[in-house]
């Protein structure tokens, strides 16, 4: 690494004993393949931090989706499988049923979980499989080049709705999270975002909580992360985060939706 331009003061600070944050060691050297500023990286970083801090590396198995995170197994240094598009929840079900003592999570995009995978998603939630589903809602199909997702907002321009998503033709954005929260099988359902430090801290807590609940076989824990897709949205990362706050959050409000098996408010 090149030395950075710092004053004497700073060189005194940058000493091993003063280190307060670095990326979890549960990552490969290989850099993320995500676009600059993409939330996928932040979410996976946070997830691995939890795994490392909880000391469950040897007991965790993840299921990667088809979507921009399809190769997340190349970056995360844990056992993983890569499931067919939309079926990560079903694969995680199979895995968890034969490995009831392991921590199992699936990590899925909105196209994956809420479009092609809707059937498997709903039934996995309904059965209350003891897994954690991390659902990354960026309102678009990132990987394939920015097509409409079920969660795309009304009037949102995507490569398959170049004049904006029209409700009459394509229906309304699907609040899959509110839907699965209705199912008795889900125990903890919560919506997050990772473009602010506070959001990241909250997400981290939610993941810790989910793994703890999984250990107690409480049922399915579901964490939605509303995220940006600056490539798909055709904005700079910083702009996309702003747009997300202004447009996505009103429709997908952050916060807990179901706690201890009960709907919030």
């Amino acid at each position: 690494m090149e030395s950075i331009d710092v004053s004497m003061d700073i060189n005194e600070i940058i000493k091993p004993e003063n280190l307060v944050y670095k990326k979890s060691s549960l990552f490969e050297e290989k850099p993320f393949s995500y676009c600059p500023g993409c939330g996928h990286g932040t979410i996976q970083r946070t997830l691995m931090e939890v795994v490392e801090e909880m000391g469950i590396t040897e007991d965790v198995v993840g299921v990667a989706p088809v979507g921009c995170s399809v190769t997340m197994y190349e970056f995360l240094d844990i056992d993983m499988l890569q499931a067919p598009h939309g079926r990560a929840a079903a694969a995680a079900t199979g895995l968890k049923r034969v490995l009831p003592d392991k921590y199992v999570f699936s990590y899925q995009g909105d196209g994956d979980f809420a479009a092609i995978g809707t059937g498997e998603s709903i039934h996995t939630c309904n059965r209350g499989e003891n897994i954690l589903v991390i659902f990354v809602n960026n309102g678009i199909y990132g990987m394939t080049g920015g097509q409409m997702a079920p969660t795309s907002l009304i009037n949102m321009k995507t490569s398959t709705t170049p004049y904006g998503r029209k409700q009459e033709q394509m229906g309304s954005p699907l609040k899959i999270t509110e839907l699965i929260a209705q199912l008795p099988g889900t125990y903890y359902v919560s919506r997050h975002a990772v473009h602010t430090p506070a959001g990241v801290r909250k997400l981290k807590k939610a993941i810790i909580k989910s793994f703890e609940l999984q250990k107690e076989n409480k049922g399915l824990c579901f964490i939605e992360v509303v995220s940006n897709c600056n490539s798909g949205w055709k904005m700079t990362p910083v702009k996309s985060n702003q747009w997300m706050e202004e447009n996505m959050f009103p429709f997908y409000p952050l916060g807990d939706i179901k706690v201890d098996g009960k709907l919030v408010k």
Partner: protein
Amino acid sequence: MSKAKGAIVVDKEKCKGCEVCITACPHQVIGMTSTVNAKGYRVASMVLPEACTGCTNCALVCPDGVISVYRLKAASVA
């Protein structure tokens, strides 16, 4: 201006220049270099190092986890 309590180290070759850390820093510590790394990105670096508190905000939001944060124990107690 207060003496720095913290500092960050950016892995320049892995930084993708997204500027998300800049937004996250409460003390405007970070700016972008004018030169680019091998991948062609301008990268984050401390432009106001003395303002850094070592709060880790920038690192928390960095998608690529390329920021390490250091904080003076004594200073943080102070």
